[in-house]
């Protein structure tokens, strides 16, 4: 009996064609599947000989026809750049403002928090990787255009709207339009961001933003490259611009064991901050827990966070907090002069508020912040 046989060449050929075919179909389909109603022409780009160049963030992506930028939210269609993240948030929650974290901005208030898919960095420890490393076409989205965002935040008794979770700067147009409309209705805007953005768009956005928490992920360019695929300098520039533009600013530094827990680096970072006039900018040293691809590390020890806090205070930072550490009293705000507790916090709750019109009730020293 002559049994049928498969030649090795046929096997290999069929297999390869099969694999590549199956692999590419979904990938090629992904770009186009965001409905046009969630697309707007991008505000920062240039047409070049090879397509378009996005000028929103320091990645400066050159995007050829039908291609998207690194952040997965900007597509070149007919040599015009479009954002595909407009009015289609995938995460909508109402959070205490302390969760952002913002400790000197409307304490105890609630913030209507939204995010779309996409991010311009790839952090190994991203808590929201299912959003940040996806395209808006891949996530489950809701429809919420800027007017509806504002209406929802009013309906839910929120004093502010927070653009947060993934990276609000990559859904820039949506953030900007919603912020503009929010201001018209007396709602404040909060930007929770990695600060990885170019100067021109940032200055424009800063006009409609009231408060920002910027993630200063480390003070080393090398770590920025390896941990976040970004670089340090643009983030430092963002801090300076936000300050100049009068946006209330707080800084978060996640202390990751083995990555960002070098006390010399923290000392250098705090030295830079004080040298550049950020002494009164609150800084939050946040406790790390294993997330995304950074799974083989312990949580940050409390002592490490305390050491970082002490260094920051020695360097002249006036408001230094420890986050994500239940039971710690390092989340209280102390009067910079009399050192009395002016706001006592436990977790996201305000236990007592000893500020009157932004001044310490005990010694009447003004405490920096937006208190009402």
């Amino acid at each position, binding site marked *: 009996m002559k*049994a049928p*046989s*498969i030649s*090795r060449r046929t*096997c*290999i050929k069929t*297999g*390869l064609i*099969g*694999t590549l075919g*199956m*692999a*590419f179909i*979904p*990938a*090629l389909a992904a770009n186009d599947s965001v409905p046009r109603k969630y697309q707007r022409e991008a505000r920062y780009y240039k047409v070049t000989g090879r397509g378009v160049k996005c000028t929103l963030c320091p990645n400066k992506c050159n995007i*050829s026809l039908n291609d*998207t930028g690194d952040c*997965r939210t900007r597509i070149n269609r007919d040599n015009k750049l479009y954002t595909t993240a407009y009015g289609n948030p*995938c995460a909508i*929650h*109402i959070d*205490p403002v302390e969760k952002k974290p913002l400790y000197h901005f409307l304490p105890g208030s609630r913030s209507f928090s939204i995010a779309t898919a996409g991010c311009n960095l*790839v952090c*190994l420890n991203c*808590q*929201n*990787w*299912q*959003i940040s*490393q996806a395209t808006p076409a891949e996530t*489950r989205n809701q429809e919420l255009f800027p007017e509806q965002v504002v209406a929802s935040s009013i309906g839910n008794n929120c004093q502010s709207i927070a653009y947060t*979770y993934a990276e609000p700067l990559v859904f820039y147009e949506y953030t900007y339009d919603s912020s503009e409309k929010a201001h018209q209705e007396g709602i404040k805007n909060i930007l929770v961001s990695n600060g990885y953005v170019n100067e021109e768009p940032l200055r424009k956005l800063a006009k409609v933003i009231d408060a920002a928490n910027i993630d200063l992920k480390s003070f080393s360019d090398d770590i920025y490259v*390896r941990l976040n695929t970004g670089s340090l300098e643009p983030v430092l520039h963002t801090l300076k611009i936000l300050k100049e533009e009068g946006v209330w600013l707080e800084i978060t530094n996640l202390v990751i*064991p*083995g*990555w960002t*827990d070098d006390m010399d680096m923290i000392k250098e970072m705090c030295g830079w901050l004080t040298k550049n006039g950020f002494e009164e900018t609150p800084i939050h040293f946040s406790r790390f*827990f*294993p*997330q*995304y*691809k*950074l*799974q*083989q*590390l*312990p*949580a940050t*020890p*409390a*002592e*490490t966070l305390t050491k970082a806090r002490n260094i920051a205070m020695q360097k002249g930072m006036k408001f230094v907090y420890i986050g994500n*550490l*239940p*039971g710690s009293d390092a989340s209280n705000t102390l009067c910079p002069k009399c050192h009395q507790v002016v706001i006592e916090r*436990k*977790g*996201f*709750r305000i236990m007592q508020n000893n500020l009157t019109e932004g001044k310490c009730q005990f010694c009447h020293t003004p405490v920096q912040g937006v208190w009402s």
Partner: protein
Amino acid sequence: MNTPYSIIPILSGTLLAYFITWILSRRKWISRNVHRQIWNILLLITFLFTIVLGLLLALKANYNLKFAFLDEALPVHVDFGIAMSIIGLLHIFWHLNYFKRLFGKETERKSTKTPEEKQVYIRKTPLLFPFILGLVTLTGQLVLFRDYLAIFGGNALYVGILLSLWLILTGLGTQLARNKAFSVTTIIRMLLLITVLPSVSILIIRVTHGWLFETGTETGPLSFAFFALFTLAPLCLTGGLLFPVLSQHRPGETTGLIYSWESAGSLLSGMLFSFVWVFLISPIQTVALTGIISLALLLFLRRRMKEIPLYTTSAITILLVFLFIFPPEKLTRASLFPGQQIQSIIQSISGELVITKAESQSNVFENSRLLYSQGSPSAAEEPVHYALSQLARVNHIAVISGALTGVLSECLKYHPNRIDYFEVNGKLLDLEKQSITIPDDSVIHSHRTDFQRWIAQHPARYDGVLLNIPPPETPSASRYYTQEFFRSIRKNLSDSGVVAIPLLSTANYLDPTTVRLYQSVVATIQPYFKHWLILPGNRDILLVSNGKLHANILTRVNDLGIMTNYIAYFVDESELVTRSHEYAEMMKDGVPTVSANHPIAVSYFTGFWLKKHGLSYILFGTILFVIFIFLISFTRGISRSMFAAGFTASTMEIVPLVLIQSAFGYSYYLIGVIFTLFMAGLTLGARWKIAEGPKGNHLIYRQHIWFMLLLILQWAIAGWLSPGRTVIYITSELLLIALTGWLTGRMFQLISSQYQPQTKAPAMVYKADLYGSAGGAMLVSVFLVPLLGINLTLIVLLMMHLLLTFVSKHRTSSVST
């Protein structure tokens, strides 16, 4: 690693490896041809990876492919390119004469044959040689696998990758022996080499891991496969090469005889490792001890074989004894735990437990993944208070694992009459007792047993059942998400009793794969419980009960007057209520339910995990399928029948393992028993006298029919006996495994006796067996069973065996590959 590309490690590693094989060839431990073949294969592998990844990256750049794994592929592509360039340069040096001639500078051509190759001594080698080979390679396999999983945080996918790579590389090793004859001296040198290779490999794996991978990162399947490929290669290639070489040195005897001796060595090592060594000595000590035993056997044989070098053998023995007495376990583990002091390393049934200190904080890692860091109250508070605050009075609680988080102290706040604490991992239980996370309170009763087995024998009426279990990443972990489990729990729950089941950590968004996993778990509990509720947390928690469930946890905890550190201050009740409603809305679609015979949750979890690393389940399945086709295409003639036998045999080992784990939980001893029985069957089968009778082809067809009958029997056993009739069920499964081993051994004997030319039989048949087993191991454990369930998988396997039987051309000769 501070640079994106590993130029220095690759350069130094490649040159060092080249230097080693060169020295070995100079010292005549291996022939120059083998040395060159090794580097030809490496050049081919690096070339193939470089072009495939390069092509994909080019397509990514041109067509904007959005696969995240391609981002990971760029450094891998460059690293392979670097390795390829270095190996390419080495090749240019080999052919320097050719280039000199090309450019007019003629030099005398040397003979490429070594004097030894010209003069081959076919002398019988002792049968203890294949025994040593089996002993060393299997211990090496078991220890290295555990070490890979301990370093990389193993899951079912990694086990599949490792097993397949091991078998494929060993198969490639057999290729190296093709058309070659080796002297007894060379064989002895290779045996000496193989006794130290497991020890060297384990040290290389641990040290290079620290150099190559970023601190604390979970490695994706792609990088893991590349790393395993290179670090397993020396041991597997040498092991694969030795088998046919040893067969050549038993002229006039069947390959089955060598196979049975090798299997006997494997059998002994499997038994020693599973039942003795794993509990008494460390991984480095285990491989060192196996090396010492093998060297002692060689020294014993020296009375008959003077070629065994006394001084070298003694020197290697002394080296291994030193390694056994002073195993550098902590030193070689240090790079995995940066900034921490390793307090202790404990080998337990579920893997390696490492306790570290960072500042004054204690941390416990299981297989490199954090189980617990001191001062993290959310891990304890959320499951306890979400569940127990639902009840007005709590009398009897069952807590399954997780005492380290402080879960028992939280339970005590409800003043129960009794808490039953279950931890199946004895070493972990001891640790929990030492660290006082099991409070010294008379209401707490700890049990070193499996919860499901316990309640089958000790019916109870629990008010709360708190599961602190891993997500369904393996069939054994998925058993807590099955119909069978919920049915048994339902019988042991009070009328309004609550069960808390941890799901995934999802932060602010549920992606579609996670939604499907949740839908499937919710669909599974619905026949047994009227109410369910998913509450977001550090890990989302599914509560199920026949009493009403509420999301206003904070109010309830306050009303009960219970003090908490986390819930009271970090949980926003209105958000909890809103999100639990949103979750409920998403659970409307019908999806398959999870059962012991169909652990679908594993495929959803694997999909979620693959997505994290930029791969999809479909893409992954396609890659496996293509590799499978490649493997088939590398076998020819009747050896393809051996491929079919190897394929079905490995699936017949894996299917019962999955079934037993899904039904009865992790059973370390059972894995040892399964393995031992298979190897015993194999040893017997390979020695069983084949009666004279029908022609060879018919005999082979008969074996195929037997294999298919075994698959049908497996289907019947899984359907009718699992898991209700435990004793008959497990006995039948074990019998089936022994029979499969026996049949495989017989098939090996049969095919190798008919294979022409006989000189090639050992290499070709052994290779086919290994490739078939690799194909089975890849497809079944991570793809077919979780996705299709046992019944459909067995039908697919039956079809595949039938197909493989048809594509097995029963020509006794083969085209050389």
